[in-house]
């Protein structure tokens, strides 16, 4: 029998009934009395000075209630890296210069969306076009146009990571490989586009309902950009239709709706069109990789050197973090004794690049896992074996960077090896490729400079035993409301339906940094567990007194039964204890508080997940077309809190990461994204989806709640690399740039054939 009653069980999502019946009200669905509709005018030019804006014709249009331009703002620039003011570089409405096609220049509020859209056409903006730069390798040339004044060579951020003696180590290697890769961009494609309803009232308070991954960040950033006190800004996250990294920065829907509402004292709603979602929200960071890997004959990896240049787009956004993490995760999941990373993020006149699920790691893993397979082949070593020889193990310290506690990489490798054996001899043009990976369970870095704990929770037990759980965690679909309710119920010793969660409303919930960096299960989970333990302790004090138990006995609560741990049959009903405890506290409900901030856990994350994935492809050598047949993953997340949730994360990651490897891309022409619609942007659909299999690995993470760690983003890391390696196994061609389209496979096959016939 499991020692747990709630965690590890298969439950319905707590928000499931509302979502399957259509009752769940997203920001997209909400209508407030007297509400206006806003639209944003965006730059059609990649780089231009704004000479003048004439809104007079638009103002005359019947139904238009207000127009704002950069002149109506405080003239501030914002960003998430608030510890570094020079990296807060984004105006929410441009005042004097636009830097990409989609940069906001004005916003209109009108009685309906059609009127607002019509008004946009009547706003006259006079631009002076400036030379623009699109490719990061062009942007860092001496004579390149400057995207931001005073930023030398358009280099926005640099990152350096180093340990050991890399140059000396390469001299000792039997084999050194140098390779070059390019990783493409990717759109998040949240099914609910960015949207917000802002309502400013005459008492000076602003309430914003918005589709966000970080309600607390939005509260702080809106207050700062609008000149309000944080406490006068309340951000509420209704059910949210996906985020994937695109919704934890301040966006123009939130800002423009708020600014217009402050001007008009009426609620204003702005919803991004799908085209705006593709062109004017952020996207995965494209990266150019130069990587050098050195090994001994026996496959021991001695040194790795990585240089990366990323296409930053027009603003810093979270791209600085992606630059850092791609460097850190390029060393994963191996024990390199010597490692050096230099990353450069270049400003370009393209849509800003930022966080997307995996946050720089999918790029690192595609490159690293392609190269390690190439190395293994050249050394004549099996791909599983080379990974086993160098893979991280529990309690490994990444020199000067990170302390890894739990690590199940070797179990994952064993399981995947077994899986490959079971598949037996494959028919021609079929291949299985593998990729190993690891990921963080939330970031330790506090570039946002919050003075609050990273996560916090409050538990209130009411007279009927029902528990209100207050947390700032943001459920964007990944299921944190369910997982955190499960943690609360388990710790308190009640049932899941005893919990009612209130999340992501800055007016009533404690601050939380939000749903990014795979942080909610570990960080918010720890806060919730602590709050529940605090509340439980108060109940047990009453129960202990009531039962007159010898004080050497421990009490606990399981499944609503308050009892002696050593004599579980001796106890009291949870409901009775709650009633008496509240009476005994002079009628005060039982309140428990918890918080979590990682301490003494290195620089990156308090815990890391690990895994190995095997992708099987079948290639048509005539056309280069290929099919993803099967994707099998051995992933370890520590203790599994919510098994249904983890399955969903895993399979969903394969759709998204498989898309990154296979078909998703954002081609551009002079800074213009050419496929800004769901019809033109190719996504994996149900008929393309491979068979998926999960191989369970048991680990226990001492830092996590009940031993749990992340299961959200890490799963996005391996698939592109595994596909690349599978294609090579199937037909012997290596694709160095993402996505691995059938066309690229076809061309590589032809090139290979020509090379053979010309010999």
């Amino acid at each position, binding site marked *: 029998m499991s020692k747990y009653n709630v965690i590890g069980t298969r439950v319905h999502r707590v928000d499931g009934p509302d979502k399957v019946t259509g009752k769940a009200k997203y920001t997209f*669905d909400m209508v407030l009395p007297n509400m206006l509709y806003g639209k944003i005018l965006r730059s059609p030019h990649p780089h231009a000075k704004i000479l003048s804006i004439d809104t007079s014709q638009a103002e005359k249009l019947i139904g238009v209630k207000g127009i704002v331009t950069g002149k109506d703002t405080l003239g501030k620039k914002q960003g998430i890296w608030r510890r570094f003011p020079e990296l807060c570089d984004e105006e929410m409405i441009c005042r004097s210069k636009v830097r990409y096609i989609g940069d906001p220049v004005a916003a209109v509020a009108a009685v309906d969306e059609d009127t607002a859209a019509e008004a946009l056409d009547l706003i006259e903006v006079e631009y002076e076009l400036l030379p623009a730069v699109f490719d990061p390798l062009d942007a860092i040339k001496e004579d390149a146009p400057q995207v931001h004044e005073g930023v030398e060579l358009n280099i926005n951020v640099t990152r350096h990571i180093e340990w050991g003696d890399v140059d000396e180590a390469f001299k000792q290697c039997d084999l050194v490989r140098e390779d070059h890769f390019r990783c493409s961009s990717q759109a998040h494609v*949240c099914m609910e586009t960015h949207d917000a309803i802002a309502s400013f009232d005459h008492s000076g308070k602003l309430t914003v309902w918005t589709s966000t991954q970080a309600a607390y960040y939005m509260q702080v950033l809106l207050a700062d950009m609008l000149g309000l006190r944080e406490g006068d800004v309340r951000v509420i996250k209704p059910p949210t239709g996906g985020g994937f990294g695109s919704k934890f920065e301040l966006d123009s829907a939130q800002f423009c709706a708020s600014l217009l509402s402050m001007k008009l004292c009426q609620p204003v709603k702005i919803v991004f069109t799908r085209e705006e979602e593709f062109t004017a929200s952020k996207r995965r960071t494209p990266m150019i990789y130069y990587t050098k890997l050195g090994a001994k004959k026996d496959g021991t990896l001695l040194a790795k050197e990585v240089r990366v240049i990323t296409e930053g787009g027009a603003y810093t956004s979270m791209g600085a973090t992606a630059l850092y993490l791609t460097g850190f995760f390029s060393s994963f999941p191996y024990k390199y004794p010597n490692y050096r990373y230099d990353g450069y993020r270049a400003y370009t006149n393209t849509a800003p690049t930022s966080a997307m699920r995996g946050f720089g790691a999918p790029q690192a893993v595609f490159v690293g896992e392609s190269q390690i397979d190439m190395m293994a082949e050249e050394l004549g070593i099996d791909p599983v074996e080379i990974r086993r020889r160098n893979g991280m193990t529990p309690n490994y310290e990444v020199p000067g960077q990170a302390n890894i506690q739990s690590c199940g990489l070797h179990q994952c490798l064993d399981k995947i090896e077994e899986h490959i054996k079971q598949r037996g001899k494959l028919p021609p043009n079929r291949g299985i490729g593998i990729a190993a990976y690891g990921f963080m369970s939330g970031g330790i870095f506090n570039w946002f400079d919050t003075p609050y704990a990273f996560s916090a929770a409050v538990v209130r037990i009411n007279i009927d035993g029902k528990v209100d759980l207050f947390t700032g965690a943001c459920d964007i679909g990944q299921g944190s409301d369910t997982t955190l309710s499960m943690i609360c119920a388990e710790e308190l010793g009640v049932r899941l339906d005893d919990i009612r969660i209130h999340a992501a409303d800055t007016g009533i919930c404690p601050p939380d940094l939000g749903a990014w960096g795979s942080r909610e299960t570990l960080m918010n989970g720890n806060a919730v567990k602590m709050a529940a333990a605090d509340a439980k302790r108060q109940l047990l004090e009453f129960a202990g007194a009531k039962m007159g138990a010898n004080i050497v006995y421990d009490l606990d609560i399981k499944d609503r039964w308050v009892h002696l741990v050593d004599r579980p049959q001796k106890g009291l009903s949870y409901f009775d204890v709650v009633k008496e405890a509240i009476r005994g506290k002079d009628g005060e409900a039982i309140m428990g508080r918890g918080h979590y901030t990682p301490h003494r856990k290195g620089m990156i994350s308090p815990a890391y997940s690990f895994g190995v994935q095997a992708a099987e492809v079948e290639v048509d050598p005539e056309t280069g077309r290929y099919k993803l047949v099967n994707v099998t993953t051995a992933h370890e997340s520590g203790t599994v809190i919510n098994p249904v949730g983890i399955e969903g994360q895993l*399979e969903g990651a394969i759709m998204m990461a498989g898309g990154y490897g296979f078909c998703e891309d954002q081609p551009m022409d002079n800074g213009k994204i050419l496929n800004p619609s769901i019809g033109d942007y190719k996504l994996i*659909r149900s008929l393309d989806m491979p068979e998926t299999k999960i191989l369970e690995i048991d680990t226990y993470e001492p830092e996590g709640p009940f031993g749990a760690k992340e299961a959200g983003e890490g799963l996005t890391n391996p698939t592109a690399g595994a596909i690349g390696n599978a294609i090579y196994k199937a037909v012997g061609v290596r694709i160095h740039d993402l996505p691995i389209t059938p066309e690229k496979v076809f061309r590589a096959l032809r090139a290979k054939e020509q090379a053979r016939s010309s010999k």
Partner: protein
Amino acid sequence: MKKELKLTVNGQPYELYVKPGTLLVEVLRNELDLTGTKRGCESASCGACTVSLNGMAVKSCTILALQADGGDILTIEGLAKGTELHPLQKAFLDHGALQCGFCTSGMLMSAAGLFHEKPTPTLDEIKEAIDGNICRCTGYNSIIRALSAVARGEYKEQR
């Protein structure tokens, strides 16, 4: 010039006046406040707006409201009968076939259309029926498992 439109939605007859260019999805969401039906694109390519029109799954953003005049429409709000969830809804909950939930209404209505036509669809028919519905969260396989369980008769309608 607005025109008269008669519709039955979830068993309830309505008489409305709409502009000729109004889409069915706009009438459902904006006039009848049935916001369970979503919109995820402007190119009829995501399936989030799928409803059942005279028993057939249709994308309600591809139909002018007036084209549906006299039609019998079922939206996600009409799928459950009172407190009793529809078998498809139960199967979705059991199999974790939803995450953010924004595609879920359309996904369920596409499935309802399939089961209306074929009570015991094959695996390929299930995959084809939802191929027009984009889900960015689940990777589809949990949805396919849920629908397969319904096709196997594991969820009997209790009516």
